[in-house]
């Protein structure tokens, strides 16, 4: 077919055989081997003999015979010996010739290239999947972050609204407090709640032309509930809204107050109260206490060191027991003198080292001389803050000074 002299054709055939290790088989139409030649051992097919059932001896022939087309090529088939062959099929009448050509070198080279390409592809596919997962996780994080920011904004709005309401409530509570008086007795006060709304409240007013009432309430706890009760009690005293009660008699007032403000009807809150009545004509002071710290009387002029006298009285807190009784005490207020009524927050001060301020340190401050133009109450507040150190005081700081 190539029109070459037999000598050249034979040489070429020898060249192909030398490079490709030829082996050849022939199978008849009964699928019996009729020929087996070439280097069959090279492919692990040694031992095959004419007469053998072709498909039983040579597995890859299963299903291929008779040939559907000729010539027919199966590329790169791994043989039993491990060598790789291109398997050529040719029909020659009723006989099928099968020629094996070794392509192991080309196969191995192709495998090396393909291995690298597939490794790279699998790696990049894996990387793409990881990036996709990371992006999904990132999106989820962004969504969570957005939701968090939204809920934080909502919380901030609620907080701002509550703060605004608390500030309004504080303004109302402060508006309820009486203004300082300059005569006939000078009355001044300092009120520093530990939170926007404290549990302290106080008041003073003339019951009649001769009797001056002075009182301080300290509800256990802080915040809205404590402030509401404190303001309510102060308002009850200011408006003298206790039935069948002589507001000139402190023990009677506290007993009636105790009946009106039992804790089970007032959110389980209770309070301490100091209530005193000064009689201008006689200069006497009648007073009673419901679990409250004693008022302090400092005798002598303001600009000299005075003497401190505790005005103690006994009685339980308002609201704890409906059968509570209150003792009434009396003393004279010499002029000049200063009467201090205060809550425990003025002297129960924790220092930065954890120790508590002594009550005697507090009373010593009360008895110190006050220079002209200075405020003894401001000095006291400054002293408390200095003792406490940085940050707001833990408890409400409330003190009233009545100077005679």
């Amino acid at each position: 077919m190539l029109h070459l002299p037999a000598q050249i054709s034979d040489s070429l055939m020898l060249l192909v055989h030398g490079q490709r290790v030829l082996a050849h088989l022939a199978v008849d139409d009964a699928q019996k081997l009729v020929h087996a030649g070439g280097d069959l051992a090279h492919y692990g097919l040694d031992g095959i003999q004419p007469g053998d059932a072709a498909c039983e001896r040579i597995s890859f022939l299963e299903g291929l015979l008779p040939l559907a087309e000729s010539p027919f090529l199966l590329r790169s088939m791994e043989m039993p010996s491990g060598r790789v062959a291109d398997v050529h099929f040719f029909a020659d009448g009723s006989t099928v010739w099968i020629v094996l050509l070794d392509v192991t070198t080309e196969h191995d080279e192709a495998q090396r290239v393909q291995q690298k390409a597939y490794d790279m592809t699998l790696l990049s596919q894996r990387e793409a999947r990881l990036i996709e997962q990371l992006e999904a996780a990132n999106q989820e994080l962004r969504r969570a972050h957005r939701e968090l920011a939204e809920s934080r904004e909502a919380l901030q709005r609620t907080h701002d609204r509550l703060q605004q309401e608390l500030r309004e409530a504080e303004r109302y509570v402060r508006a309820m407090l009486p203004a300082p008086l300059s005569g006939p007795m000078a009355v001044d006060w300092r009120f520093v709640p530990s939170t926007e709304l404290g549990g302290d409240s106080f008041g003073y007013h003339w019951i009649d032309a001769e009797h001056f009432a002075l009182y301080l309430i300290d509800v256990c706890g802080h915040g809205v509930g404590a402030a509401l009760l404190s303001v309510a009690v102060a308002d009850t005293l200011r408006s003298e809204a206790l039935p069948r009660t002589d507001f000139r008699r402190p023990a009677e007032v506290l007993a009636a107050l105790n009946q009106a403000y039992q804790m089970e009807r007032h959110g389980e809150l209770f309070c301490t109260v100091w209530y005193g009545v000064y009689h201008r004509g006689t200069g006497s002071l009648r007073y009673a206490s419901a679990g409250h710290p004693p008022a302090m009387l400092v005798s002598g002029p303001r600009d000299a060191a005075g003497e401190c006298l505790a005005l103690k009285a006994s009685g339980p807190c308002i609201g704890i027991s409906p059968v509570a009784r209150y003792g009434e005490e009396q003393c004279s207020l010499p002029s000049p003198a200063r009467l201090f009524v205060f809550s425990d927050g003025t002297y129960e001060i924790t220092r930065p080292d954890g120790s508590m301020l002594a009550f005697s340190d507090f009373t010593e401050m009360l008895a110190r001389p006050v220079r002209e133009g200075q405020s003894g109450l401001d000095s006291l507040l400054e002293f408390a803050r200095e003792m406490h150190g940085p940050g707001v005081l833990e408890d409400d700081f409330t003190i009233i000074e009545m100077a005679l």
Partner: protein
Amino acid sequence: MLQKKICLLGAFGVGKTSLVRRYVDTIFSDAYLTTVGVKIDKKIVTIGTEPLSLILWDIAGEDEMSAVRLSYLRGAAGYLLVVDGTRAETLETAASIQTRVTAEIGKIPFLTLLNKADLKEEWALPAQRLETLEGAGWTFRRTSAKTGESVEASFEDLAALLAR
């Protein structure tokens, strides 16, 4: 003895060679070695009481550059389509191969093996797509050449289909 030719088809790297090694030699290697051309193995099974010789053609996987050589399928009695359960795109490659095989040699029995079932956390096959293919007559088996899960059973299920 009766002989049946079975081909393993699918995208590259789905585990066709590993499935054959697990089934024929009961071994597994984590190292990936690509197949060029075709490797042929033989395994004798007993279906009912009759022995059946399975001639297994492990055919090079399909990639973007080269399609499966359908000439390798000539004379096949059935085939196993292999999918990598962690690579969704290999399910589509399998679907494409199945279409071409049917066009070339007609409808012959096949099973689809969702391989690498041991990698549960990386499983990525869309359930809806699987349902659609099941509706089109596909039968799925979850296999793992690594653990051996359902490997022997899958080959023998196909053998049983061919022996009918």
